[in-house]
């Protein structure tokens, strides 16, 4: 079975290591924060200018001056710092954020990503995504493996306008976990009940299946 959004988020959460500063994009990446192991500590960076983002507020805690990059009301954890957007992107552009997780429309075997624009539809803007993919040393894309028509989103070459080039290192989809290196997707893990063949069928870009492919583990 393909993973649910929550299951993808659970698998993404496994990528977070103790002591990581992490930027989680809107959608599934943000959900991952709910599944971080209690054995580790991570600090969440929100690119509007907050390092140490906490949970959503209770009704008493709601403060219009305290929001995240998705414009949602949030709280700050102990040890948080708050700064300008220029400082925030200095942090991002300078490669100080250990891991960025974000969604995408397409990713290709060279690590290119398209995530902000579908020609013919209204362009809403890239927000901070272009800075994030150009800045973080380690970037994971999370998305469904194929679109609702069954077309692969893991391509030989992105067809949509790019958000960034040669920057995506890993993809976590509802079907699989794959590394991107040397011009190919490398299959590392399959979702429970998903065969290697199904992943192969739904991956349009070059796919290398190693001997050590394993099934995703959930606690």
């Amino acid at each position, binding site marked *: 079975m393909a993973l649910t959004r929550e299951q993808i988020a659970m698998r993404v959460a496994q990528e977070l290591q103790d002591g990581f500063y992490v930027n989680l994009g809107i959608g599934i990446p943000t959900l991952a924060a709910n599944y971080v192991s209690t054995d580790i500590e991570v600090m969440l960076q929100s690119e509007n200018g907050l390092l140490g983002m906490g949970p959503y507020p209770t009704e008493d805690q709601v403060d219009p001056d305290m929001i995240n990059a998705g414009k949602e009301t949030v709280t700050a954890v102990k040890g948080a710092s708050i700064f300008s957007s220029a400082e925030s*992107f200095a942090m991002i552009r300078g490669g100080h954020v250990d891991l960025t997780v974000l969604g995408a429309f397409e990713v290709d075997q060279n690590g290119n990503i398209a995530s902000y624009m579908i020609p013919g539809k209204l362009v809403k803007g890239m927000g901070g995504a272009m800075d994030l993919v*150009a800045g973080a040393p380690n970037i994971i894309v999370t998305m469904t493996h194929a679109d609702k028509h069954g077309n692969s989103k893991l391509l030989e070459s992105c067809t949509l306008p790019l958000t960034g080039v040669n920057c995506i290192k890993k993809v976590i989809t509802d079907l699989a976990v794959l590394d991107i290196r040397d011009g190919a997707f490398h299959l590392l893990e399959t979702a429970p009940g998903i065969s290697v063949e199904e992943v192969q069928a739904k991956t349009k870009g070059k796919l290398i299946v190693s001997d050590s492919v394993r099934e995703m583990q959930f606690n």
Partner: protein
Amino acid sequence: MAGFNKVVTNYADAMNGLEDGMTVISGGFGLCGIPEGLIAQIKEMGVKDLTFVSNNCGVDDFGLGVLLENKQIKKMISSYVGENALFEKQFLSGELEVELTPQGTLAEKMRAGGAGIPAFYTATGYGTPVAEGKETREFNGRHYVLEEAITADFAIIRAWKADKMGNLIYRDTAMNFNPMAATAGKITVAEVEEIVEVGELEPTHIHTPGIYVNRVIKGNFEKRIEKLTLSR
């Protein structure tokens, strides 16, 4: 205090000098940290053909959205403009020009404008539509795009506390783009929640030194919340 008293007591004085066709940088991220009263005053003045530099363009009936509604904006330089049906309509009809700029590049362009740096290189946008028509260049084996600074005739910002000399402190994430915006206006106007006596702000806590600020006005803020999210 004659020389450094920057406090003005009405919005007409605060925005005095703003004319048709001018460029205005606005602080704020979404509806957070926006200078509500200064935006209302611009609507009141009815000046037209403005270019706005702001990360977002408000929503239909709040923030910069009210100036769109009033057809006062000719061009927006923003990173994300997706919360606004009116925006979409004016953009598709060709009434509104839009220059999409990555959020970090936008923040840095404002900072550069204020800091006397005419242009800088960034990896952001290399190989994407953002780099089209721009110079690119390699440093230490990585590719970068040359981006130019932004300055404006006016910068309108929101702060929490100001003293009469225009020293500013921001509150929580309402800081966002306001500090850079403050540096990049020929005339910078700060709308604040509270005006305190000179000397009350601790020198190392001041986020924006008064040298960047020309006018200070005390505002009353609705502080509308764009997405109320609560813990379960």
